[in-house]
């Protein structure tokens, strides 16, 4: 005990007289461990606290405060009471003692055993004895933190202080300048407002003291360690200003005044604050400022200089209108909503009818913004403007005017739509139903394509409002759409028509089943007239275009299960007749039919019914057709069915994989097991039109080099590789070994690649364990054996298998993936496979479309690319340095393949390290390498790292050399980089100006226009450099 007190005394002595700050920590540890008590500490401090030197007293108090800061949790209520009394008293002491006293008080405010009444007395003496704004930054922050702590725990006591608390706070923050403290002060002010402290007569003072910062203009210093942004301050201040209707009479004039400002950000902030505050206001708060606000808003939208301000202004108008619509009216007060809307209409409506339609857009936008606010506002506004718009549409003759009017009407319909919520209220546009419908149909029958396009989107909007399109209108609409679909050549129109048909079909499926689908079917199966006659080619061409549009329309309208049931048989029939040759369809059309099926599988709802449709009808039918075509192709070599074409098969794969991955996992599992038994055992029992021979062996090596059967393995891939991971694939071991065999031995490219992909897709989903490891090891052994014997005929096949397996393992972070990628790195030196290996890296880094992506439920870890890059970039650089000269391009290509696929942020941070290699790559003769390096460099040049500026000479001369490259894409990319260079610090690039300008004169006369336009831009920028008025 005696030793402890001696220790304590020495600690105190060293802190107070020896000025060793670390002793406070030791003392605090002692108190926390129970070695000494606070009482003992105060006794030991006795002499220092009563010293006649203010600095000694300050040191003493500081030690006590720092200890309290650590141990405020251990104090008893009695101790807290005494300490508070002591500290309150010390506030009256010499000014050097104030900082440690405030720290001590702050520590005490965090105590949970604060005696009742102490908060009030603490604040009273604080407000009385301390002038906060003459304190230093840290002490001011101390005061704010005290207030925040007390507001959290002692709300009722502080409210007991009444308006004194608000007044005290207002005095403390008046004149605060530091953004960190302002954030705290705004938080306190927000708490005062939102927690219902009594503002009393100080509402205006509180407003004044905070609003003097509005609008916030603050640019954080560079390398700011505190990370306070302008946005944070704006948000915090807005929460205060917009927090209570009591501020309305002060805030609204301020906003009107600030909207006059020339500073864009001030305008934006004012508009956003207006939007925020009116959500809490009532109409009486707004009443006297409505006219002023409207004038300012109108001016901002009419004379807008930026889109952000315009949209903020429109949002504010919507908020204002909805505030007015919300208010409950007294019997004697006037209806402020209709007064306000009268004002709006008076200023805007006449612009809608002026002959040149000059201000029609801003006026329309303002009216629409008010229209979206509420149902009542919609009623008032549409009743006022619609009749004149409709009348004008019929009286105008110029297409561009009619289109403008149509667009404006369309926006009105859309703005009404968003404001409609409750069912029983009267529909806003019902009164104009007939005239709107006739307007749409007349526009659809026009020949002007932009009018037609606008009309289709208007039709969609009308359809989405219940009650505006009757059954007969829908039929008429379908008639029009069908006509446009079949007759109209313009791509944009048919795109719009297809989209509109899709939207309408969702709402009125029956009409589409009975009207549209049969029409499209007859149209597609009609043979083009007079076949074989060569002068009819243009007609055939247009027939092809009609079929194309019909196919995409069929896909677009199939979003309801009932429509799918009708539309998919038509598409299947296209495939069947293409196979049998009863109606001739080109390969391209068959591919489009598959695409349409795929699109339907993607967009349709996942229900039992659609699942059955795809798994029990469409997939077996596709497999059966492909098999028939394959067997037939083998028998007669004469006419081949289009279904053995690679393009068609590749288009079938996504149909199967989309339905297996997305629709009904149970049924997908069934489909998978059927497919596996078809491919392994030749079980054809589930296929329709069953007339197949019994000894089909699709995965076994076939006699001769017929590949029509073996290539069907891609369909198997589509099926088994896209299953959800919860679904088991039957006979997996046998399947894997046959796939491996096929991928290593088959000589047909599509077959062995598909087999390798299928193998990889299955490996990716196999559960971790010894069986997987041994499978991979045996495959690896086989692959390496093939690859190591340079004379082996199957090296390409082995390489393909290796790279796909490597990808499958890399995606799931499997430890064995390194062995495979290392093998890949070593192949960069290979004489035959080197370039292929370099390309392989792009395969590793990109998402593949048909397997091993998230859509197929593959096991893909996040950021595998970055991981691969950071693990291997060093290997690559090292390999490059030791490689013989003729192999170096492979390394550069591999590097650019990897870097190109990294996210831009990572690229920018990693590139400085690889810079010398990339500069090397620019002088590599391979155009692919040049192009991908340039595309890596371009984003980096926008914000150049210092390392790059040091290499400027090398960079400029390499880029200038590339602008005479034979490949136009390289010329374009290098010119873009040169243009980006012109944004570098002027003093760095000015020495190159003359040289660059001279070099850029030549591409101005390039034979390709795209190159010339880049050169024009780049040269223009370089001319401005260092010239007066330029940069």
């Amino acid at each position, binding site marked *: 005990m005696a030793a402890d007190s001696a220790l304590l005394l020495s600690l105190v002595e060293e802190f107070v007289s020896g000025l060793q700050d670390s002793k406070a920590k030791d003392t605090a540890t002692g108190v926390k461990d129970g070695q000494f008590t606070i009482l003992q500490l105060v006794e030991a401090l006795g002499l220092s606290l009563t010293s006649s030197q203010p600095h000694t007293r300050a040191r003493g108090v500081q030690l006590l405060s720092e200890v309290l800061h650590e141990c405020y949790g251990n104090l008893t209520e009695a101790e807290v009471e005494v300490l508070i009394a002591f500290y309150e008293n010390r506030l009256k002491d010499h000014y050097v003692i104030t900082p440690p006293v405030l720290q001590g008080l702050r520590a005490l405010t965090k105590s949970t055993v604060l005696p009742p009444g102490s908060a009030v007395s603490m604040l009273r003496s604080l407000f009385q004895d301390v002038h906060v704004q003459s304190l230093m930054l840290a002490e001011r922050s101390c005061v704010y933190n005290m207030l925040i702590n007390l507001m959290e725990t002692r709300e009722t006591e502080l409210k007991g202080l009444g308006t004194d608390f608000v007044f005290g706070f207002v005095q403390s923050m008046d004149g605060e300048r530091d953004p960190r403290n302002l954030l705290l002060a705004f938080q306190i002010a927000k708490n005062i407002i939102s927690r219902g402290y009594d503002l009393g007569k100080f509402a205006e003072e509180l407003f004044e003291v905070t609003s003097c910062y509005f609008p916030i203009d603050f640019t954080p210093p560079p390398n700011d360690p505190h990370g306070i942004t302008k946005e944070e301050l704006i948000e915090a201040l807005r929460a205060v200003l917009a927090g209570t209707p009591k501020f309305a009479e002060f805030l609204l004039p301020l906003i009107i005044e600030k909207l006059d400002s020339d500073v864009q950000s001030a305008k934006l902030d004012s508009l956003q604050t207006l939007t925020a505050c009116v959500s809490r206001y009532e109409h009486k708060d707004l009443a006297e400022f409505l006219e002023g606000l409207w004038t300012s808003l109108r001016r901002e939208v009419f004379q807008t200089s930026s889109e952000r301000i315009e949209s903020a202004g429109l949002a504010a108008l919507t908020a204002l209108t909805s505030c007015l619509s919300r208010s409950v009216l007294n019997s004697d007060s006037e209806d402020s909503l209709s007064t306000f809307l009268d004002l709006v209409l008076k200023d805007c409506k006449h612009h809608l009818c002026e002959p040149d339609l000059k201000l029609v857009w801003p006026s329309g936008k303002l009216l629409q913004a008010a229209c979206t606010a509420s149902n009542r506002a919609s009623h008032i506004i549409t009743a006022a403007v619609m009749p004149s718009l409709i009348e004008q549409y019929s009286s105008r003759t110029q297409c561009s005017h009619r289109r403008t009017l149509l667009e404006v009407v369309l926006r009105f319909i859309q703005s009404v739509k968003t404001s409609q919520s409750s069912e029983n209220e009267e529909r806003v546009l019902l009164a104009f139903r007939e005239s709107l419908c006739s307007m749409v149909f007349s526009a659809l029958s026009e020949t002007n394509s932009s009018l037609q396009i606008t009309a289709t989107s208007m039709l969609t909007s009308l359809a989405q409002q219940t009650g505006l399109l009757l059954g007969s209108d829908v039929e008429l609409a379908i008639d029009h759409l069908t006509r446009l679909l079949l007759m109209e050549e313009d791509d944009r129109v048919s795109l719009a028509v297809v989209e509109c048909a899709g939207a309408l079909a969702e709402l009125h499926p029956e009409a589409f089943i009975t009207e549209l689908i049969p029409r499209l079917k007859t149209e597609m199966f009609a043979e083009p007239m007079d076949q074989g006659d060569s002068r009819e080619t243009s007609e055939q061409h247009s027939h092809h275009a009609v079929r194309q549009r019909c196919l995409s329309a069929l896909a677009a309208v199939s979003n309801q299960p009932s429509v799918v049931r009708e539309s998919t048989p038509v598409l299947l029939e296209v495939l069947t007749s293409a196979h049998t040759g009863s109606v001739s369809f080109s390969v391209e059309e068959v591919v489009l039919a598959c695409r349409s099926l795929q699109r339907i599988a993607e967009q349709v709802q996942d229900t039992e019914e659609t699942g059955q449709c795809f798994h029990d009808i469409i997939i077996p039918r596709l497999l059966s057709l492909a098999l028939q075509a394959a067997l037939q192709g083998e028998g007669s070599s004469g006419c081949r069915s289009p279904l053995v074409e690679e393009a068609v098969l590749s288009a079938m794969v996504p149909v199967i994989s989309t339905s297996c991955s997305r629709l009904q996992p149970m049924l997908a599992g069934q489909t998978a097991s059927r497919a596996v038994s078809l491919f392994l055992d030749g079980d054809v029992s589930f296929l329709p039109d069953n007339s197949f021979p019994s000894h089909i062996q699709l995965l076994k090596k076939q006699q001769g080099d017929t590949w029509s059967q073996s290539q069907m393995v891609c369909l198997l891939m589509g099926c088994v590789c896209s299953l959800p991971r919860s679904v088991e694939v039957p006979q997996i071991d046998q399947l894997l070994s046959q796939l491996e065999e096929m991928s290593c031995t088959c000589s047909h490219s599509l077959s062995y690649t598909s087999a390798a992909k299928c193998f990889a897709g299955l490996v990716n989903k196999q559960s971790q364990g010894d069986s997987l490891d041994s499978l991979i090891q045996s495959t690896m052994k086989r692959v390496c054996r093939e690859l190591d014997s340079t004379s082996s005929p199957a090296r390409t096949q082995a390489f393909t298998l290796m790279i796909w397996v490597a990808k499958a393992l890399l995606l799931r972070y499997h430890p064995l993936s390194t062995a495979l990628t290392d093998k890949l790195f070593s192949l960069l030196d290979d004489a035959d496979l080197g370039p292929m290996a370099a390309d392989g890296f792009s395969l590793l880094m990109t998402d593949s479309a048909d397997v091993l992506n998230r859509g197929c439920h593959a096991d893909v870890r996040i950021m595998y690319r970055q991981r691969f890059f950071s693990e291997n970039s060093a290997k690559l650089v090292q390999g490059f340095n030791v490689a013989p000269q003729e192999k170096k391009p492979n390394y550069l290509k591999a590097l650019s393949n990897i870097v190109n696929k990294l996210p831009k942020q990572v690229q920018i941070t990693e590139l400085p390290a690889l810079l010398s290699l990339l500069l090397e790559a620019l002088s590599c003769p391979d155009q692919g390498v040049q192009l991908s390096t340039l595309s890596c460099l371009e984003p980096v040049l926008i914000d150049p790292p210092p390392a790059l500026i040091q290499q400027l000479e090398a960079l400029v001369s390499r880029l200038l050399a590339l602008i005479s490259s034979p*490949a136009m894409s390289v010329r374009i990319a290098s010119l873009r980089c040169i243009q980006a260079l012109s944004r570098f610090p002027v003093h760095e690039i000015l020495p190159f100006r003359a040289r660059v300008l001279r070099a850029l004169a030549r591409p101005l006369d390039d034979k390709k226009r795209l190159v010339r336009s880049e050169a024009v831009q780049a040269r*223009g920028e370089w001319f401005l450099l260092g010239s*007066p008025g330029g940069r």
Partner: protein
Amino acid sequence: MSGGTRLENANPVIFQRSGERLLTASDEDEEVHDPIDDREIFDILLSINDPEHPLSLEELNVVEQVRVKVNDEENSVGVEFTPTIPHCSMATLIGLSIKVKLLRSLPDRFKIDVHITPGTHASEEAVNKQLADKERVAAALENSSLLEVVNQCLSTRSI
């Protein structure tokens, strides 16, 4: 002379901008030689800023595609521009900007002729004469305050 205090034409009629030139397959074909055509010259000119307004010459209809004539074989370019009002004091400056932009953007084999659309400006002849005089153009560009205004017209707007 400059519109620092009052703009000469405070409320000009603004025209719609034409869209980007549509890419055709032959534009991307390495082998095809694309001749320099009217639209290409127009594309070079349309982004020039007006000296008074934050608008481009295209938006003010000062340059139009129909008033641009180019003959790639004979190495000649002719541009007619239309001042927004007949007494526009900026006409010479606009003409100079167009001329400088073309000098910077076209191969030097071209002979460049810039003049005012006939009948649209009060002192049409005088301006045309100034613009056609090589030495006066060169001398104007030696004048750094004039060059400064021209460069501002040719800077890409950064809003």
